[in-house]
Structures are given as C-alpha cells and as structure tokens.
C-alpha cells in the first residue's frame, strides 16, 4: 500500500449541472502536498482554481475522486482547513476581535476565556492588527481587513491553510506588504498552505511549488515547478537570485505561450 502525502488529491473531477448539460470544471486532478509545504495554484480566470480550493475546503463536493488530509478523507467543510477568502468575508456586525474570537471559540476547546482572548490578540498581533481589535470591518481599509482575515484563519490552527486569491483586490503596495506578512507567518508557523493567485511574482516569491493549471473547461495540472529559494525569503534578495528569474520565466512561458489566456485569444 502506497503512503499518501499529508494532503492528497486523487483524481478530482468536478462537474456542475448547467442549462446546457453538465459542465466539467476539473478533470482528474492529482496533487500531493507535503506537510509544511507552500503551494501556489496559478492559471487564467475560469480555469477552476477556486473550484479546486473549494473542494479541499469541503465547500464543493467532487463528482469523482477523493481528498485525503493526514490519511483521513475530506468530505465536509471544517475548521481544520481554514480559508482566507478573496473578499475577506469578515462579519460586519462583529468587531475585529469578535470576528477572530468566533473562529477561536469553535476551535479552542478546553481553553479558558482569558486564554482564548489572549490567543485572539496574539494572532491579531502577528498580522499587526492588535491596535484595531475594537474596530468594525467597515472602518478598515481593504488591506487591513485581509490581515484580519488571515489572523482569523491562522487562529484556528488549521492543518491546511487555504487562501483564495487573498490579495487579488488590493493595490500593488498593500499587496506587497501583505505578502511580507504571509512570508513572516510562514517562517514562524510553517503552515501547509494552498494559495490561489493570478500574480506570477507572488507565486514564485511565496511558494515552494507553483502548480500551473491548464485553461478550463476540464482543467488539469499542466506543470508543477518547485521554487528552490532558501527560506526565510526576502523580496529584495530573491529578485537577484537566478532561480527566482528562472521560475518566474517558466511560469510566464506556461501562462502566456503554452496556455494563453482564453479571453485575449477571443479578443
């Protein structure tokens, strides 16, 4: 019997019923992720990246195939697979602290009230948002909201951290600041991460592996490239390392030569 990886996707096919019959979003995806590995999923819009992430989160049920986490089959959503949503999805009627607290209360069984509060504040401090604990999401900028979204996810002590294009809606400078936050967290916590991104630099800078997906429908994994940059990483040092340029070039060739954006082809 073969030994499964920490996170193993085996033959994941996802089909959605539509008016024009069944739409196959993903076609037999196999993916193995080791514990502590940071995997970036990249591909053009509509290639089913989000569907794949949602399948791991348990929000989408695969039509065929199975997902294993630490040897156990995944078939429902749960706090062991925390999600950082693209739109941050903070609850606007709760303060920043209460938003994180809601997640902590569901995952910190056995901890006392004061321990929970401390844990909430600790995680907010990790993303430098301790100062805004009493504020509501509506009073925060997009970047700050997403920091809280990240704090909420890591406060759940997930076995896998799923990030669905977490910085897609942010401007370039805010995005860079948040990438630094993620790199810092990765250096401290060494989470197992699955992150969707559109951004080649983001993928190469943050990830140990860049998994490139072909264009949908019936998307598959086209290429899987390791990024062997030393950790902890630093934006300024990384750009001068040949491996960074090579990995970047590989991803760009994949996205813009082998599998061009279907939208630009149509235009």
């Amino acid at each position, binding site marked *: 019997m073969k030994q499964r990886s920490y996170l193993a996707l085996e033959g994941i096919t996802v089909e959605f019923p539509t008016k024009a019959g069944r739409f196959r979003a993903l076609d037999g995806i196999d993916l193995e992720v080791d514990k502590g590995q940071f995997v970036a999923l990249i591909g053009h819009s509509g290639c089913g990246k989000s569907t794949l992430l949602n399948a791991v*989160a*348990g929000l989408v049920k695969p039509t065929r195939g199975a997902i294993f986490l630490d040897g156990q089959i995944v078939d429902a*959503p749960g*706090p062991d*697979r*925390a999600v950082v949503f693209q*739109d941050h999805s903070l*609850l606007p009627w709760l303060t920043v602290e209460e938003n994180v607290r809601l997640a902590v209360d*569901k995952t910190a069984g056995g901890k006392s009230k004061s321990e929970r509060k401390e844990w909430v504040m600790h995680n907010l401090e990790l993303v430098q948002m301790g100062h805004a604990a009493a504020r509501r999401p509506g009073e925060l900028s997009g970047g700050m909201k997403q920091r809280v979204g990240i704090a909420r996810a890591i406060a759940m002590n997930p076995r896998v951290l799923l990030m669905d294009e977490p910085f897609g809606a942010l401007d370039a400078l805010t995005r860079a600041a948040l990438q630094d936050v993620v790199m810092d967290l990765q250096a401290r916590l060494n989470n197992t991460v699955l992150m969707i991104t559109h951004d080649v630099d983001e993928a190469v800078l943050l990830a140990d592996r860049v998994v490139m997906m072909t264009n949908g429908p019936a998307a598959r994994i086209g290429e899987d490239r390791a990024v062997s940059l030393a950790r902890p990483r630093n934006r300024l040092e990384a750009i001068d390392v040949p491996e960074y340029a090579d990995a970047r070039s590989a991803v760009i060739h994949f996205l813009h030569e082998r599998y061009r954006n279907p939208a630009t082809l149509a235009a």
Partner: protein
Amino acid sequence: MASPSPNGKKGPSASAGGSTTELGVILPYPEEAIARRSFEPVAAPVHPLMRRMRGMAASMLPTLVMLVGLLAFWQLLCGSPDAVFPSPLKVWQESHDVIVHPFKGVDIGLTHFSIQNGGDVGIAGHVLTSLSRVLIGYSMAAVVGVALGILIGQSVFAFRALDPLFQVLRTVPPLAWLPISLAIFQQAQPSAIFLIFITAIWPVILNTAAGVQTIPAAYRNVAKVLALNPFEYFTRIMLPATVPHMFTGLRIGVGMSWLAIVAAEMVQGGTGVGFFIWDSYNSSLLTDTIVALIWIGIVGFALDRIVAFAGRVIGRAS
C-alpha cells in the same frame, strides 16, 4: 558713545530711503513694526447648543413655511360662509373642546392608567385605545411573521409550499377580513386585534424571508468553514444579517396595522379613534373628523419613526 538707532539694524539704510520734509527726515516705517499678521475674520464664538438650534431651525423652517402656507390657502379656499368644507378657523372654533381637552375621560397617574369606558372620552383616549390594540396585534404579527419569514427563507420546500399562499392572502384588504374575523371571534376586541395581526404580518414575513434568502454566500461559507452548528448559525450569522430586512418589514407592517385599526373601528364602533371618526361623521361634526385625521397622521408618523429607530439601535448593537 553712539546710541543705538531706534530702527535697529535697519537704521543706516533707513535714511537712504527716507525723504526730507520741513520737519526733518521721515524715516521709513521699520520692517519689524509691520506686523506680519494675517487678520482672519474672527467669528463670534457660537455655543454648541446654539449651533444645534440654528441647524434645527434651518431644517424646520421650510416645513413651517409650508404649514402656514397650506393653512392660509385652505382658509382662503373655504373661508366663505357658504363653503361646504370647514375652514381651519371654523375647525378651531367648532372643535375647540376636542382640540384643547384631548385627555378628557383619561386617568393617567404615575401608577395607574385607565380610560373611561364609553361616554364622553377625549380624542387622546380614543387614540390610546387604538394604540393598545395595535400594540397587541402588531406584536403578535411581528413574532409570528419573523418566525414564518425565517422558515420560508431558510427552507426551499417551505417557501414553495407557503409563498403562493402568502402572496394571495397579502392582497386581501384589511376590511375584507372583518366579517371572517367577527365570525371567528364573535367579539369586537379580539376581532380588531386579529385584523391588525392579519394586516401587518405579510410584509414582515416576506421581508424577513427575503433577508434570509439574500444572506451573502460569503457569510454562509464562513459558517461552513467554522462548522457553526444550526443554533450558532442562527444567532451569529442569520439574525444579524437579516435585521435590516426584518425592520423594513416591521416598518411597513406598523403603518399597515395603523391603517387597519382605523378601518376596523369605524365599522365596529364603541371605542377607538376609528369609532371617533365614524361617530363624528354620523353627528355631522366634520370639524371633529378633521382633528382626528391630524391625530391619526401624527401618531402613524410617530409609530413609523419608533420602529425605524428600534431598527437602527438593534442593527448597531447586533
């Protein structure tokens, strides 16, 4: 010892620029003396309370002007002795007693409150009777309406089963329920309350249901990832997310229940502001009717504002 020039350092150059008159040398004005100050116009300090009152006055002024204009126009239109409709002055003269003694027959103390049963009761007494009916019927409609709204908002099966029924029943006018209500309850008081209930409940149900159905998928996904149980989902996500819709329904509902009570009391008689109108009409006291209309309008407006305010407070707290 040379005494220092009064112009300071500018002294030597000053004489060069000065002109000579009969009286001597006029020194140019020393630069230091030209105050480099900008004279900002200083507004008189305004007390915050004063400022607030000014703001209120500014926002109320158009309303007041409109009111005075309307009354003047009305007086002009109906002022002649043979006018069929009473003028404002006539209303004031003929219904003077109704206007200045609204609490006749009402006994309000710190610990007790009662309205004289029957007889000569002031308009406020009738309004309070109507309000107590609205309070009971509307509270029931709010509780049942929110519960039913959550049910059909949450369950597709329940929605498909009940929504057509609700859509048909909500178009039935309040007065059409009266015979049915009387047949069921036999008595005036419970039938009036049922009438309020059945009129106010539809907007509460339908708006609450819409609120539940439009909870963003993002919040539902958060609930799934956090593995909230149904009770936690209800209290932490569904209720706070639905509060704005709920209060839209409750606000429409309170307005409709006020409409219904007046109609119901007009037919049933006895007490209440609706009865007052019917009674004054039958006694050909049109001016009393006009006073009652103003009372109804103001109370209805107040009810709407109270529910809206409650919605804001709860929306902020939840």
